[in-house]
């Protein structure tokens, strides 16, 4: 599934991302240490590094390619969790 492949791209990032796709539900969690992420290019985040890019990438896959507005540190360690569910 396309969404899953997007997650795998992100999972090649620096550290510790886990992602699970269950039907229409994408769950991601873990820690991203500052570094590049291919997912950011999908949503034009201009080099930002963020765990939340996973969720944004999922949005992008769903046709929301310009989804912007999430806050993110440009460096440092970010941990969190995101869930996206089709209604």
């Amino acid at each position, binding site marked *: 599934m396309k969404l899953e492949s997007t997650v795998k791209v992100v999972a090649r990032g620096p550290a510790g991302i886990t992602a699970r796709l269950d039907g229409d539900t994408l769950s991601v969690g873990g820690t991203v240490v500052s570094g590049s992420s291919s997912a950011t290019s999908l949503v034009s985040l*201009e080099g930002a590094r963020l765990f939340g890019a996973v969720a944004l990438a999922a949005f992008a896959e769903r046709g929301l390619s310009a989804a912007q*507005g999430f*806050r993110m*540190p*440009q460096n440092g*360690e*970010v941990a969190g*969790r995101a*869930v996206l569910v089709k209604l």
Partner: protein
Amino acid sequence: MRVTNQESDNLYADMILKVLGAKSRGDGSFAGGVAAVRDVMRELGVPAAGYAAVDGSGLARDSKLSAAAIVALLEAMDRHPLGPVYKDSLAIGGRDGTLRKRFREPQVAGRVHAKTGSLDGVSALSGYVDSVSGEPFAFATLVNSEKGDRRRETRTGSSASWPGSRRDEWESRSRRRARPRRRHRGRPARG
């Protein structure tokens, strides 16, 4: 509700919780309100293991929500008769409330209905988003940037500042960087 959810007013949120307790259980305390919330969450099918509440605003350290629980609530409200009222109470990206200056791009503006959650070191956003093709989604993104550098923070969109608003505690703090930083380790989200 609109003031609470669109401007993220913590005092309103706490008072609404107490009113809920008073109206439904005859107990206008935090505990009474939390009990009322538990009743509603149970009715909506949100697993009790996914949240812990002790206040209405979520500023209390012991108030916690998992992303899965938030999305479960959003899904339940999407099916609820009052769902449209609930969705309408949320800030709209690029339009109003705490999201007025976020999600402003033409492709996105108006597609996101969501509630922010901000503390020092915490940034959360949860709500509904419509894809370009019109597919509706519920989402919750909870970020704990414990070691992130707020001074270099990038928001993919314009920076928002709401003087007098309680919603972005960390924003005003980040501008007063000389102060020691408050830590919120292990705390996933604010309400």
